[in-house]
């Protein structure tokens, strides 16, 4: 029997969820609907005239080879950011989960970078890696003999923004993996150890499957993060360049809408972006979640 508690008054429950519903409607649905409407219009920024143009904005978008390239860039970027930050987050969490002398201190230090805003993180990495004044960049070019130049080379720029974006997300992932690891029953690990399983074997056979819900959750969160919140990094570090090679979708929305004042195209792009993220999340829930074990 599941224990249920019911409200006596039929009105009270609705009243209680009202604030949340109002907030969601005003800040999520209303702008989304506005964006959807705007995407079918061509209008001047001052709102003096607007014209219904059916799918003109969408057709212009999808016949632009650079927009398709921007979608590809976004996927490459978000997969890179998610895998780098999840792998490193997991690695650090596994290391930190052992009995250390200053556990609390180490953990706190590892969580810290999460408090850094993406824009600041971008600037910090730029100071390290800018070809003209970056300390690390000068070192790379001098001692490794590489021609590191993110101002001109698209791949270098991509590597730079991936590092800047993944860096602070590692802390976020670390926190969740840490919590996940502590929930893994010690008895299982010990039993396996007595049976002679190597540390690596123990990790893959026991810890990893038990971490799969965390893993799943983080993959969704990291992809959403890299789709949207990395705006600050791109804006401060590359502004989408060089040659459009780091122009991810959300940055293009900003460029065309906020800076360029092409509201129709920008809204159409937002709608595409919204659909993409819905699609990805649905796919993740349908196919990846099936493989997730929620309990040992």
């Amino acid at each position, binding site marked *: 029997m599941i224990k249920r508690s019911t409200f006596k008054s039929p009105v009270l429950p609705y009243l209680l969820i009202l604030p949340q519903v109002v907030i969601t409607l005003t800040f999520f649905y209303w702008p989304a609907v506005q964006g959807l409407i705007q995407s079918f219009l061509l209008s001047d*920024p001052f709102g003096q005239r607007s014209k219904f143009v059916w799918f003109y904005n969408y057709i212009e978008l999808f016949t632009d080879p650079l927009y398709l390239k921007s979608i590809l860039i976004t996927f490459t970027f978000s997969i890179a950011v998610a895998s780098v930050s999840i792998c490193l987050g997991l690695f650090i969490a596994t290391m930190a989960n052992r009995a250390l002398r200053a556990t609390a201190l180490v953990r706190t230090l590892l969580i810290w970078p999460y408090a850094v805003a993406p824009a600041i993180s971008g600037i910090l990495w730029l100071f390290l890696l800018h070809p003209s004044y970056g300390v690390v960049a000068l070192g790379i070019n001098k001692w490794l003999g590489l021609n590191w130049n993110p101002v001109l080379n698209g791949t270098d720029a991509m590597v730079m923004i991936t590092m800047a974006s993944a860096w602070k997300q590692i802390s976020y992932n670390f926190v969740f993996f840490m919590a996940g690891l502590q929930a893994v029953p010690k008895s299982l690990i010990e039993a396996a150890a007595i049976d002679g399983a190597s540390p690596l074997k123990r990790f893959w056979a026991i810890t990893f499957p038990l971490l799969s819900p965390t893993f799943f959750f983080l993959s969704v969160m990291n992809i959403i993060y890299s789709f949207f919140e990395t705006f600050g990094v791109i804006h401060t570090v590359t502004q989408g360049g060089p040659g459009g090679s780091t122009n991810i979708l959300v940055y293009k929305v900003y460029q065309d809408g906020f800076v*360029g*004042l092409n509201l129709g195209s920008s809204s159409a792009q937002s709608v595409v972006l919204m659909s993409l993220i819905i699609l990805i999340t649905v796919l993740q829930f349908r196919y990846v979640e099936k493989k997730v074990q929620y309990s040992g």
Partner: protein
Amino acid sequence: MRLSRMCIVVFVGICLAIPAAVVAEPVTINWWHAMRSARGKVVDTMIEEFNKSQSEYVVVGINKGNYDETMNAGVAAFRAKKQPHILQVFEVGTQTMMQSGAVYPVHKLMSDTGHDIKWSNYLQAVLSYYMDAGGNLMSMPFNSSTPIMYYNVDMFKKAGIEPLSKIDPITWDELGDITKKLVEADIAPSGMVTAWQSWTQIENYSAIHNIPFASQANGYESMDCELLINNEQVVKHIQRLSDWAKDKRFMYGGQKYQGPKAEFIAQNAAVYMDSVSGIAKLKKAVKDFKWDAAPLPVEASMKSPQNSIIGGASLWVLNGHSDKEYEGVAAFLNFLANNEMQSYWHKETGYFPITIDAYNDLKGKGYYDENPLQTVGIDQLNRAVPTTISRGLRLGYFVQIRNIINEELELVWNGKKSPQEALDSAAERSNVQLKTFAKTYK
């Protein structure tokens, strides 16, 4: 008891309200601008001067962030019917403002309010950027600059190169020889860098050589225009820079000014092209070498080069206010154009004085003998009467177009595209933007 207390409250309230109503309040004029830090302080001082000079109006200046943010704030405020009287908009937003139907053209404002302004007294190359096809001024020029060429005097001396003239431009071939000498003798790690590549190397290059940037007189005559930057001369110019990039005579330092400026200051490049506003920045930052400025180079075939074009921003008067307020706006704009304000603005920021009077006034006082660097840009701007091609650019979605040009040029610099391919594609992509813009306003 309670009633009488209420009476007292009401009475006191009325007493407090009366003086405000009886004594005529000065009319408030709101000005939203994008001038921050040092420039912001200069703007504040100018506003203060105006407010002190009369008692009818009070101008309130508010900084709304950078150019994009200021324009957006203006747009949002206009939609909410809370727009300021004056909005500062950068030069690339000119077409959007002009077509918006939200502005009160400055020439009309000035004649409606009875200000008889001698427009011929203004710097024509500055005015023409903000005029409509019929030659009517739509917005008041405020901060205007133009690109010039800075060079490292010490490096030039070391290589035995004579200092350059401040009036007569050298040719691009000569610049090629100079940078070759500097690089080959290992005096400079690379030859030249350029800030704002679209503005200096394509927009200004086209204007100086009287090459159309876009059809329909650079968009002045109709919105149905197309970019013409994939013409032979511009392609050849970009080809030259791309060739120079291979033997280090040219170095790419980024789209804006920060990167290229850093290269010049670090003496990684001997020649640096940027706006005249760079004078103040270099004066502050360069300590360990001597530098000077010269006009931008021209092609040897161009015997009498045209004027360069400006960048910067102008002041737009927005619709929807009372006549009384517009009188204040006109008085303020007129005040800003007086000699004293213009010379103060010019001296403090390096932006051009917008009237010939103010320029002559400064000249008479010997300002340019003490600051010869400041004449380079002005002379370059005034060396010819602007033609329909060199007067400016009037393009919709100009921000996106500049972005496109930046992107395509970067693909040339990193060797992914040939100059012809890149400029063809820049023109093609920009034309889509122009088409959409025209469709919006038809």
